[in-house]
């Protein structure tokens, strides 16, 4: 049990540090690489939480496809160096105050309201929980219509991107 706690806090520290690195880095490529680290840490969390398929999908879709697309666009446009100066000086303090309010609100709900979520779940899981078989059984029976809609959405996005590129070229 204590090993679980130590592992959780090490991973959580890496995740939060990577997110902070993304927020503070002056170079867009560094920001993207910090985000890759954050996503990889989240994939490890998914493995711990009994979702091997989701964990691998996280690695392939997020850190593989999406972040490579980000890096590709950053290098295509040549906008690695981020401009330092800010036109609106009050923006960062205001954002910090708003984030602090949100954090206090979340902390209040988690630790002071007696909501039933603080119990831990049972230790044992069914053998197949979170595997590709279990995911697809749920996906193609209970969620068959959302799958179709997601497919149409991806098709529309693809057509939209092609239209944007053609329209730019003319």
């Amino acid at each position, binding site marked *: 049990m204590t090993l*679980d706690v130590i592992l959780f806090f090490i991973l959580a520290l890496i995740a939060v540090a990577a997110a902070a690195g993304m927020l503070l880095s002056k170079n867009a490529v560094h920001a993207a690489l910090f985000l890759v680290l954050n996503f990889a840490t*989240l994939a490890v969390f998914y493995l711990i939480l009994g979702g091997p398929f989701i964990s691998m999908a996280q690695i392939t879709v997020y850190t593989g496809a999406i972040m490579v*697309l980000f890096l590709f666009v950053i290098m295509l446009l040549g906008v690695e160096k981020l401009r330092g100066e800010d036109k609106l000086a009050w923006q960062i303090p205001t954002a910090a105050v708003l984030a602090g309010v949100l954090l206090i609100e979340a902390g209040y709900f*988690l630790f002071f309201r007696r909501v039933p979520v603080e*119990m831990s779940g049972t230790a044992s899981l069914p053998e197949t929980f979170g595997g590709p078989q279990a995911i697809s059984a749920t996906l193609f029976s209970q969620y068959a219509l959302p799958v179709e809609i997601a497919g149409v959405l991806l098709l529309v996005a693809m057509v939209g991107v092609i239209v944007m590129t053609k329209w730019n070229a003319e």
Partner: protein
Amino acid sequence: MLPVTYYIGLSAVLFIMGALGVLIRRNLIVIFMSVELMLNAANLAFVAFARYYQEMSGQVFVFFVMAVAAAEVAVGLSLIVAIYRARRTVNVDDLSEMKG
């Protein structure tokens, strides 16, 4: 399993950092990355609750979020490329003509 509160707390912290990134960063690409961070924070909460209730639906929703995020990234990055081609900048402070 650790109490699900731990995971929800981490998810909240990551979400807040993403929101902070949207508010303080002035580069369109970095703002977009912060949006991705917020989506992932929500995914972590989904997976934690899926484990807690031993219910597959949470993980299936993460799958849908990933699909929508992929579509969003493709369209969003093509918009950023179009903006850069038209205006030679991806700084949101320079893109303020629609201000009244």
